[in-house]
């Protein structure tokens, strides 16, 4: 069985290699190869899962040592895999959702002439993500971590002819580098402290090293998680990442890659348990991000950007839960899985809407689409109910548990965190209802040509292209797109219930992820009731604003907060002023120094050496006699020096 673990990674890696090296002759079959290998990886995962269920709970961890990667003295890095309940959960999520999105992409990317390459990148992503979750040590995890970063970069910028996509890809890559530095520093600290970076020895001995070291490692890991999972303050890339094709947004920037940070924190739970300061930082980041993302989501008109804000916010919930310690770890992962289903479904639904609407993304140009796209409406609707936490659906179970755990943190901290989580739930209900109403209900605003806004001409450049407005003909998407959406909708509806049945999910993870029951200051039922009330308030507010009144086709000016939220709460302005500008000044200063001081010294030295060279080459005059004299002189010096050495 162990030998199958490597194949999990190898199958999509092979697909990536074949598709990217195969050239044009694979243009017609490439997408099938890519999909087949993703499915093969999923089947392997399923076989391993069945095998794992067949064994005792304490005996379920498999490991496979492939080879010694970097054996240098005391520095031992192995390519070794570890398949336990936590990584198994991820394997199934990644390969399962990944396969569905491969299928969806066959239809979605049908008219793209670089479809083969797209599937190659998708396979590359799967391989890297599986490597990340299967690695048995932090260094190999880092390799996967960088691999998903690369795949994400390639896929965000897939439509490289669009400058905005190229810029977004670069932005994602650069912001992620900041986080990556955190991970690499964390690994370095681990190596100097423990002499190894394999999971088991590090996590087992972290308790004995003292809180300072643990805090340092924890904060660095948190920085890494912030980068990959788009948490404040490294959140700015996720919104722009929506420039990538929608299946990419669904797979990478919603369901899987962005959750890598949560995986990292939960996997390193022992480190955070030993470092309360780092844990506080984690919950703060989580709470801030969950509100930040939700507020941004409320103000955006671009359907994908709303979903991006929502992703940020939902991952904020997970990070919050992961920061709560054993009372939250399991729920973080549970929410991660249910979120994987409904967020992927929502993105695919959004893609399906765009597919039928000439790639329009502005929700103010939608309206009343439920008649034209019944399947999309139904599946999107179920995803919507799941994400807002409608009782009985997946999101309800997982989110409610997180809110409970947040209150259970205890003290003022518990109240603040719980309050933030509740407020987030209300906001989630608000912005998702807004999406639902603006897209599928109300009047059909797409029938009339858009009137360009005099104040903000650059808001929607797509509408300005071409002289004549082409009225879209909304239609349902092909089977290859709707089937994955239906499957994901099933997950959105039932996964949460299944997981919570007798706390099945918690017990499944318990051998590797420690679990404790949290005790909120008020009864669990009260918390659940409060959650439902928050949900109803959110839905109601949205209905008042977007259901009862017609939605204006042009965005109104809005309040100060709305305008700030439309600009992603000024995240880019903040980065520009605080980071980019000083960076530019620093660079200019350095360039000046380099030109005047360094180059001066360098050029001076070079000129001096050159002059010396020009003078000394004249000794070489071409006469054998003078060469002989120089030899004689040399011999004399040699003999004299040798004798002199003895004399001294």
């Amino acid at each position, binding site marked *: 069985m162990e030998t199958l673990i490597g194949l999990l990674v190898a199958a999509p890696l092979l697909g990536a290699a074949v598709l990217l090296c195969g050239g044009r002759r694979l243009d017609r079959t490439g997408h099938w190869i890519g999909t087949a290998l993703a499915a093969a990886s999923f089947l392997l995962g399923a076989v391993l899962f069945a095998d794992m269920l067949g064994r005792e709970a304490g005996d379920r961890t498999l490991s496979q040592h492939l080879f010694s990667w970097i054996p240098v003295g005391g520095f031992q890095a192995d390519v070794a895999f570890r398949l336990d309940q936590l990584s198994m959960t991820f394997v199934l999520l990644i390969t399962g959702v990944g396969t569905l999105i491969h299928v969806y992409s066959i239809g979605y990317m049908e008219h793209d002439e670089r479809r083969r390459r797209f599937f190659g990148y998708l396979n590359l992503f799967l391989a890297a993500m599986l490597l990340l979750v299967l690695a048995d040590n932090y260094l190999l995890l880092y390799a996967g971590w960088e691999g998903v970063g690369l795949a994400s970069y390639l896929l965000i910028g897939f439509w490289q002819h669009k400058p905005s996509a190229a810029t977004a890809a670069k932005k994602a890559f650069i912001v992620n580098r900041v986080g990556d530095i955190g991970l690499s520093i964390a690994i370095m600290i681990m190596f100097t402290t423990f002499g190894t970076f394999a999971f088991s020895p590090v996590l087992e001995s972290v308790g004995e090293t003292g809180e300072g070291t643990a805090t340092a490692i924890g904060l660095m890991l948190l920085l890494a998680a912030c980068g990959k999972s788009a948490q404040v303050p490294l959140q700015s890339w996720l919104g722009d990442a929506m420039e990538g094709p929608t299946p990419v947004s669904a797979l990478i920037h919603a369901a899987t890659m962005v959750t890598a940070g949560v995986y990292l924190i939960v996997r390193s739970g022992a480190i955070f348990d030993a470092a309360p300061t780092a844990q506080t930082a984690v919950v703060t980041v989580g709470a801030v991000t969950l509100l930040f993302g939700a507020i941004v989501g409320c103000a955006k008109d671009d359907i994908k950007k709303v979903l991006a804000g929502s992703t940020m916010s939902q991952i904020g919930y997970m990070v919050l839960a992961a920061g709560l310690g054993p009372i939250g770890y399991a729920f973080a992962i549970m929410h991660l899985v249910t979120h994987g289903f409904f967020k992927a479904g929502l993105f695919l639904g959004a893609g399906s809407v765009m597919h039928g609407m000439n790639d329009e993304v502005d929700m103010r140009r939608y309206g009343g689409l439920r008649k034209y796209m019944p399947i999309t409406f139904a599946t999107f609707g179920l995803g919507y109910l799941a994400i807002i936490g409608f009782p009985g659906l997946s999101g309800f179970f997982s989110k409610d548990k997180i809110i409970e755990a947040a209150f259970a943190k205890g003290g003022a901290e518990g109240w603040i965190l719980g309050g933030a989580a509740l407020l987030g739930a209300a906001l989630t209900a608000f912005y998702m209802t807004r999406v639902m109403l603006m897209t599928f209900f109300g009047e059909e605003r797409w029938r009339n040509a858009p009137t360009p806004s005099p104040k903000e001409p650059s808001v929607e450049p797509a509408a300005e292209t071409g002289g004549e407005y082409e009225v879209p003909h909304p239609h349902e998407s092909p089977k290859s797109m709707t089937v994955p959406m239906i499957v994901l909708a099933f997950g959105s509806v039932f996964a949460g219930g299944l997981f919570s049945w007798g706390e099945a999910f918690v017990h499944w993870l318990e051998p590797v992820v420690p679990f404790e029951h949290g005790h909120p200051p008020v009864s669990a039922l009260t918390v659940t009731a409060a959650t439902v009330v928050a949900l109803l308030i959110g839905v109601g507010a949205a209905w008042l604003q977007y259901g009862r009144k017609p939605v204006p086709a042009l965005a109104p000016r809005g309040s100060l907060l709305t305008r700030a939220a439309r600009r992603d709460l000024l995240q880019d302005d903040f980065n520009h002023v605080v980071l980019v500008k000083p960076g530019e000044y620093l660079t200019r200063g350095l360039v000046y120094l380099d030109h005047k001081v360094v180059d001066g010294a360098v050029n001076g030295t070079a000129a001096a050496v050159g002059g010396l060279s020009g003078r000394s080459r004249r000794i*070489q005059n071409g006469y*054998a006699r003078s*060469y002989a004299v120089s030899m004689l002189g040399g*011999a004399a010096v*040699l003999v004299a*020096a040798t004798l002199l050495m*003895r004399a001294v």
Partner: protein
Amino acid sequence: MSTTTELTLRAQEMIPAPDIEYGQLAPVLIVIGAAVVGVLIEAFVPRRARYTAQALLAGLALASAFAAVVGLAAAGRATTEAGLVAMGALAVDGPALFLQGVILLVSLVALLTFAERRLDPRAHGRHVDSFAAEGAAVPGGEGEKAAVRAGFTTTEVYPLLLFAVGGMLVFPAANDLLTLFIALEVFSLPLYVLCALARRKRLMSQEAALKYFLLGAFSSAFLLFGIALLYGYAGSVKYADIASVIADTNRGTTEALAGTTGNDVLLLIGGALLVMGLLFKVGAVPFHMWTPDVYQGAPTPVTGFMAAATKVAAFGALLRLLYVVLPGLTWDWRPVMWGVAIVSMLAGAVIAITQTDVKRLLAYSSIAHAGFILAGVIAATPSGISSVLFYLAAYSFVTLGAFAVVTLVRDAGGEATHLSKWAGLGRRSPLVAAVFAVFLLAFAGIPLTSGFAGKFAVFKAAAEGGAGALVVVGVIASAIAAFFYIRVIVLMFFSEPKVEGPSVAVPSPLTTTAIAVGVAVTLVLGVAPQYFLDLASQAGVFAR
């Protein structure tokens, strides 16, 4: 006392019949034997068939000699079974076999460039190689024209090459001073002749040969004088005897020398002159003056062979001399060698900057490299020996490959060696330029090339041997040297090609193979040097 024993005793007083281990001498014997056969071929085989016969014979001889070296090494002669052969005249041990193997492989590759006949345009319908039609004819005279018309080629180069290789095989293995001297002459004389045989620019070639001969003879005289002084000091020319006298364990018994034996002044002067003779061959400053002129004037295949193989042989002999004969004098020779190494590295690198001819540039680069290798020699530790062995193996193939590339870039006057003509070569012939760039990067010691691994090994050995300051100078010299190597790369890839620029000749598989081997060795030794470093360190023990 019976008659028999008396006879035996008398027999012992006579000169004993030498006891020769032919099996262990096989590499040398094969090469020299083939060279003699080559001479016979010149005398008896019809002119038409000589090229093929000579080239095949030489190839066969070098390959089987290499096989013999491998066989000896496999039989443990490099390690546990190492010892002296031929009455103590030669050593068969790790360094000797390693260097002989390198010399043979290098010669085999050099042979390919010798045999190349596609580069020069056909003369009177016949393929011609890089060598003069008739070496003895006056340049530009009637005799030469007649020889060219008749399609003569100097196939004597092959036996000459073999003789030179034979001498070089003995040189690092020589275990007494006379054998050392004879080996030196055996490989030097053919090289002088080979240098004079360029087909193009014959006057320059003859001038180079004459200079090389005059200066070589001059340095041989020093070497011989040094040998005489050492004999006067120790009463023997055998390495082990001299070493034991230095170590004061054994005073010579020859009465005629009783007055001089053990006189340290003789030892110091003799040792210095001996070392000087070897430094001349490796081209270290201040005995380097011949290098640029000879490298430039000699036919390029000969230059490549000479630059690679001579350096290997001469450094081998120098190592043996310093480690076997003069270990007792380490504190005397080390400071002097420090000076030579520093001056070689700096002078080679600095003067190379203003060179405008590719072959002269490579000549100065070889002077700088002689300095780097000396840094490893100075370490005076086992790791010093093995690092020098590795460096020599790496460096010789880079050099050979680089000179082979030089033979490809040609214009109407033959090889276009002026650097200005190489401008923009990368645009016109990206592959050739890229290959040359690999060799230049290896010379400069950029990681992932053999040059880096070699330089790292010698500098590490030097630093461990207490020569940290030398390493600092070495790194500075490397930085200066990197400038002119990379300048050539910039010239090739980032300048506009000249309108009337040279063309790159399409070589036969011979030169292509030679260059490919050079690139392959450069990259393999650069990417995965550990196996070869281990090999060199296993081979790093001298038999005494």
